[in-house]
């Protein structure tokens, strides 16, 4: 099928916006989707082991949040899989046999999660505590598997491998392992997985940091704060290390993206590290703080290391100036906030280690209350870095975004985007309303006992069924 690329251009912009919008939305649901089950099980385990009813109560409440947010994620995830066809039919038409493999594996994970979240949420009453806990243990590996599948596919887009291409660019042979485990997978997987766990930890803990600031200081608050925050604090320093490895691998494997992240224009040694700042079409840097030779040192441990710049690549094979600036600012945001998070973690671990108790400084809790949102900003920024930085490629150095886009008229895609924005807005409104309501009810409920799932629209068993009412 002959394709006139120019004729496809119109739908390109709305398709990119739609994909960015729906993915940015979905990625917000991922940290709690993948990591909250582990935190919940940890809490349940503590409750069973120490015979602590408070821990069990916390675990049960978290499981409700987990289920509601899984339901939203299931819907937005289904939309995403269809968008591959509606917006980018040629991507899968050409690379589906290789890139689709990761998604096939993710399919298992989705199955297992959907089944076991149902069992876990609705099994609190009737299953024996140990049975309930053991059935729940399926959830963390399922989340891990799902993350692996999606990241294997994304890594394929960043560093394609394991495929033999025919004369017309069609995939003629696939090396399954090579296509699943491409070069980027190693660091992408660990970087993202750790990000999910520490984001979930900070987010959950931040709720109880707010409770501390409002004066709640009981066993419930301490436990619900300490468990997730400890998980996050133990992981954050590692994330700096993994991130550093990832950046260095990027300099090697995806030089255009790395040049955009660091807004490097000329290929050179003694390359400075630019903090913030913007680059223009002539390669001039405006604003920002330039630290001499630091970029070269970070990449190759020596100021003499040569780092490739944007101008080393043809203009149509590297991010545009605007894209480079977006990538750079997103990258700096991620690194900056990540460093603050690491400092906060060290503060926390120091207090725990030296004084054997939780911090009692209001400033600590103010920062901890912001850490949840900060971690989410980091996740978004990291995602923007890798996706915008890959432009103009949908499969790095192999297939352009403009080659993959749909034939649908732009007006169609714009309309679909408008409808999705409205519907996603409605979903966000319901989701937040619901969480606030749950929180309010749980506060009331602490005065008078009531089962946490009551009134939750996750599923069906929530409402009381009456006949002849």
């Amino acid at each position: 099928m002959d394709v006139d690329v120019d004729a496809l251009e119109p739908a390109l912009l709305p398709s990119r916006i739609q994909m960015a919008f729906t993915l940015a939305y979905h990625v917000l649901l991922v940290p709690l989707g993948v990591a909250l089950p582990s935190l919940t099980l940890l809490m349940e385990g503590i409750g069973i082991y120490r015979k602590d009813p408070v821990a069990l109560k916390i675990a049960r409440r978290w499981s409700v949040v987990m289920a509601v947010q899984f339901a939203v994620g299931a819907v937005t995830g289904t939309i995403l899989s269809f968008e591959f066809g509606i917006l980018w039919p040629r991507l899968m038409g050409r690379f589906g046999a290789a890139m689709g493999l990761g998604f096939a594996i993710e399919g298992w994970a989705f199955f297992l999660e959907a089944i076991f979240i149902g069992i876990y949420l609705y099994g609190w009453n009737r299953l024996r505590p140990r049975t309930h806990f053991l059935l729940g243990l399926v959830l963390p590996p399922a989340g891990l598997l799902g993350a692996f599948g999606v990241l294997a596919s994304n890594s394929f887009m960043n560093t394609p491998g394991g495929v033999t291409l025919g004369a017309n660019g069609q995939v003629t042979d696939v090396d399954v392992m090579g296509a699943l485990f491409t070069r980027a997978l190693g660091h992408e997987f660990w970087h993202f997985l750790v990000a999910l766990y520490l984001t979930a930890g900070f987010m959950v803990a931040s709720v109880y940091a707010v409770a501390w600031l409002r004066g709640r200081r009981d066993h419930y608050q301490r436990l619900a704060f300490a468990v997730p925050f400890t998980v996050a604090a133990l992981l954050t320093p590692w994330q700096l290390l993994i991130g550093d490895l990832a950046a260095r691998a990027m300099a090697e494997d995806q030089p255009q993206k790395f040049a955009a992240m660091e807004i490097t224009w000329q290929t050179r040694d003694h390359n400075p590290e630019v903090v913030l700042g913007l680059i223009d079409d002539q390669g001039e840097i405006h604003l920002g703080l330039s630290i001499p030779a630091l970029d070269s040192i970070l990449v190759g441990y020596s100021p003499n290391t040569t780092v490739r710049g944007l101008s080393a690549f043809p203009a149509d094979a590297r991010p545009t100036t605007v894209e480079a600036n977006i990538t750079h600012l997103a990258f700096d945001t991620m690194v900056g906030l990540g460093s603050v998070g690491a400092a906060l973690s060290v503060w926390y671990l120091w207090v725990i280690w030296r004084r054997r108790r939780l911090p009692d400084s209001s400033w600590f809790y103010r920062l901890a209350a912001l850490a949840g949102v900060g971690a989410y900003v980091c996740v978004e920024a990291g995602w923007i870095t890798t996706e915008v930085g890959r432009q103009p490629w949908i499969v790095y150095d192999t297939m352009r975004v403009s080659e993959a886009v749909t034939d649908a008229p732009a007006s169609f895609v714009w309309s679909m985007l408008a409808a999705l924005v409205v519907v996603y807005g409605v979903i966000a409104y319901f989701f937040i309303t619901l969480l606030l309501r749950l929180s309010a009810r749980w506060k009331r409920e602490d005065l008078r006992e009531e089962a946490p799932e009551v009134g939750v629209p996750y599923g069906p068993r929530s409402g009381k069924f009456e006949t002849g009412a």
Partner: protein
Amino acid sequence: MPDLIAFVLLLAITAYSTAGGVDFGAGIWDLMAGNSPRGREARALIDHAMAPVWEVNNVWLVLAIVLTWTGFPILFQQVFSSLYPLFTFALLGLVLRGAFFAFRHVAEEPRAHRIADVVFGLSSLLTPFFFAASLGAIASGHLVPFSPMSVAFGLVSLAATAFSGASFLVGDARRYGAPELVVHFQRRTVVAAAALIAVGTFALGVIWWQAPDLLRSMLAGKGLPFALATMILTPLATFLIWRGIFRWYRVLTVAAVGSMVFAWAFAQSPYLVPGQLTISQAIAPPPTQVLLLVVAAVVVLVIGPAMGLLYYLDQRSALESPES
């Protein structure tokens, strides 16, 4: 091996048509129930009966799509490049349905609650209609989104989901000991079955007109056993429900709807798009096929039992809050 993968894909589509169909059918009856006291009771049952498994059904859909793009990349590209409007409407239905199912639990004002009910019900019509319409467009061999074939398939799907939804709601009403609702949904099963038979006959006429080859192999070729099965099982299941013989009727309902999907798929095999694209033309390279079969085997070996466990616990009412 390519045929086996096509068969796995067919199984995923069938699972979504039957399990998802029951779910969407319940949504259709929810819409029809109206706002009378009896209607509200019926809706309360529907709400309650959409078991804790309600989003497991989405998984079949995702599985089908993943199998298509990995196993038959060219089919995926062709189908989505031409039929995107159908998929967009189906998806819209899917999101609205999920959102408003949740919303009607949150809504406190009666008016907002009523709006949520209506949107939920209407979106339950959109999704089965448009997904089936896309199958109709494929079956016609022309991949044109809006054609007599796509409309005919869409209508059959609506009738089939209404039928299977009502049949399963009879079972739910029995389980929760609501005899008036049993009668309520018994009647509706019969009405839906009549509609299904009428629309099905009409659809056969449309196929005869638009794709005579497909009809031939449906009624005189590989599709025949399944076409016969659906023609026998639909009235049989309806008869059992009508006479109040509450045994096997749900299995027969699923078999009737499943056979219908099989009849279409087997009739057009070995074509994925009749006259245009065969299974062997579209299949991915052999290593990918092997991996897909491994994936399918794991689904059967690991996820099968897990799903069994879910249904088992659900049926034993091990998954309920103390209040319900």
